């Protein structure tokens, strides 16, 4: 395990040399945008005429805008299902894919494919699966003698998009966990086997504790992705004029900025989203100190 190693001498030079492009990008790209967003969140700006001072009006609106409040609720519900779903399922898939199975690379590729396929194309396929009268899923249900379900109607759409988003994220999660799993020394398992631990015990007493750094990282990444989820949701639930039956916060930010000439309001919403994610990150790092095991 290399977590504790510090770079020495020439390594230090290369460390900074390789990080420089990222830092330049962050400082001149991200940092500038972040500052501009903060400044604009205190302004009335329609993009076309000079911005005027708005004070806290955009922030007060965060609590009054019905469309935004609905989007926030949706984002939180979505994240609450998506994050555990991605972490648990991709960990299980990674454990399966970490065995010596014939054609394991074929399976790994299959699980990773959604990550490299256009979200628009895969969402179209999911539309064919979820369709009420013409979908494959309902066709199967009816064959089994069950009532067809309107998967993308408002009451079910949230679950439907969570499933698609989890499905799309398993591949990336699997890669993270596979990296963590291969780093666990085989001897631990061999020793456990000799002591008579079954697979279940091995998983919870060896795999899970030793893979907590990967679980932590994957939870963090999934949370950020959950709060920014957009493409599958847009493709599966879009309505006219950029609306969705499950509008998440990104819908609100995008529409306010680009459709409603309300850049100030959109900036305040973006800040709100950032603050929520940052608060969650702080909570995660607190958990990390308590529970994550770095060997």
């Amino acid at each position, binding site marked *: 395990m290399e977590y504790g190693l510090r770079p020495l001498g020439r390594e230090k030079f290369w460390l900074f040399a390789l990080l420089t492009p990222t830092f330049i990008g962050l400082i001149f790209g991200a940092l500038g945008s972040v500052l501009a967003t903060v400044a604009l969140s205190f302004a009335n700006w329609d993009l076309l005429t000079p911005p005027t001072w708005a004070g806290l009006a955009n922030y007060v609106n965060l609590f009054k805008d019905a469309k935004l409040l609905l989007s926030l609720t949706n984002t939180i519900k979505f994240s609450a299902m998506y994050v555990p779903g991605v972490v648990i399922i991709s960990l299980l898939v990674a454990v399966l894919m970490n065995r010596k199975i014939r054609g394991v690379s074929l399976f790994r590729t299959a699980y990773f494919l959604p990550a490299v396929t256009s979200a628009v194309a895969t969402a179209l396929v999911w539309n064919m699966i979820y*369709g*009420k009268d013409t979908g494959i899923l309902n066709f199967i249900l009816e064959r089994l003698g069950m009532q067809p379900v309107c998967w993308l109607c408002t009451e079910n759409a949230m679950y439907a998009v969570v499933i698609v988003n989890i499905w799309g994220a398993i591949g990336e999660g699997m890669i993270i966990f596979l990296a963590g799993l291969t780093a666990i020394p085989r001897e631990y398992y061999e020793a456990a086997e000799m002591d008579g631990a079954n697979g279940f015990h091995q998983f919870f007493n060896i795999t899970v504790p030793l893979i907590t750094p990967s679980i932590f990282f994957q939870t963090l990444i999934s949370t950020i992705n959950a709060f*920014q989820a957009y493409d599958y949701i847009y493709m599966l639930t879009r309505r006219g004029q950029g609306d969705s039956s499950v509008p998440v916060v990104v819908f609100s930010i995008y529409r306010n900025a*680009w459709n409603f000439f309300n850049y100030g309001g959109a900036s305040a919403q973006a800040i709100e989203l950032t603050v929520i994610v940052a608060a969650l990150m702080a909570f995660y790092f607190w958990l990390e100190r308590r529970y994550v095991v770095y060997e």
Partner: protein
Amino acid sequence: MKRFLFILVIASLLLAGCGGAKTPAAGNQPVASSAPAVSTAPTEISMMMWGDPAELDVWNQIVADFHQANPNITVKVEVSDWDSYWTKLKTLLSAGTPPDVFAMDAPLYLDYQSRGVLLNLQPYLDKNPDMLNGVYPQTLEAYKTPDGMYGLPRDFQTIVLFYNKDMFDAAGVAYPTADWTYDDLRAAAKKLTKIGADGKVTQFGYSLDLWDFEPGMSEIIWSYGGDLINAEHTKTLVGAPKAREAFQFLHDMMFVDKSIPDTNTASEYGGDPFLAGVSAMTAFGHWVVPGYTDAKFNWDIAPMPNGPSGRATSVNSAGFVVGKASKNPDAAFEFLKYVLSEPAQTRLAELGFACPVLKSVAESDAFLKQKTQINQKIFLDSLAFAHMKPVFKGYDEWSSTIGDGMAPVWTGEAELGPTLDTVVPAADEVLANNQ
């Protein structure tokens, strides 16, 4: 892609933020506005529009023709899809480097004009008094402001009734006529609807794109004597009794007769059940004609039906405007003038996405005898009873507020009346914020 959009919004904030510092490109030396209409120095102007590849081909031809007629002016055309077009345009405008000429959808025109980014074309129009003589006057209305016109139409859309002849023949129902009322439409739609033994509808009588008022909804509201918005654009009228009657009529067709698919069902057929061959009638503008050309059934068009308060349709136009920051306004206007000329309008007519605004071309074979053998004249005749699609500042947000609010009604998840009661005040608030 997941983070792309988010980054895009953030990045454009930055771009827009520092745009003011940009200096004009070296090639764009300012041309004095007192220069003659056709400048003698070679000029290049940029033109931006939304559209698909077929449209780009035709516009490249129009631009080539224009260059032949005005060898000193070269036009660089850039085409994007609808959504990216507006994003790109707003970014360029806020950076102070808009294209010289760009496309405008009439309802959104005032959102730009009122923010002072468009060039007033009135001085040019005053110098060319005969220029608009041959243009349908209904298509010019949208661009008029108290201090003149800041844009000119290039083509227009009226909404008509499309019907699947094969379905009418099979059901033994007479084709829609110019005498049809909405009650006739409802009766015919009922006869054309097929409900299977399991209660599933396999064929619908009528289908509507219920996201926007323009195709099919504003028509029936006007025919029932209602309206969308008051003349001052301060009050939303879609909750008034007459409009409610019209909404109720469509609602009953959808949920009592089951002759109109709800929007969830419609989206299973790619959003257009008529094109998918499962709906016998629909209401749209000319923009669907090229797509319908490949339909595997016979179809034609009829005027929108009559209502208790007469017949109504909607007229909307797409046009061109000139950026106020344009360095070549004279050349830009020359191009706008050319777009309204017979050769350019003929090319647009042949493209077949819309109706030409120049009467002589609209009434010529170029428009009336297109590849698709339908009664094209109905699009033109509909102008006689057309209402203008509303044009006011804040249109996008207003129509989105109503569209979002009404969406659960058209999926069958919310009641019509109470929904209208909450949507109308929300829409009025948008209007108040945009005064």
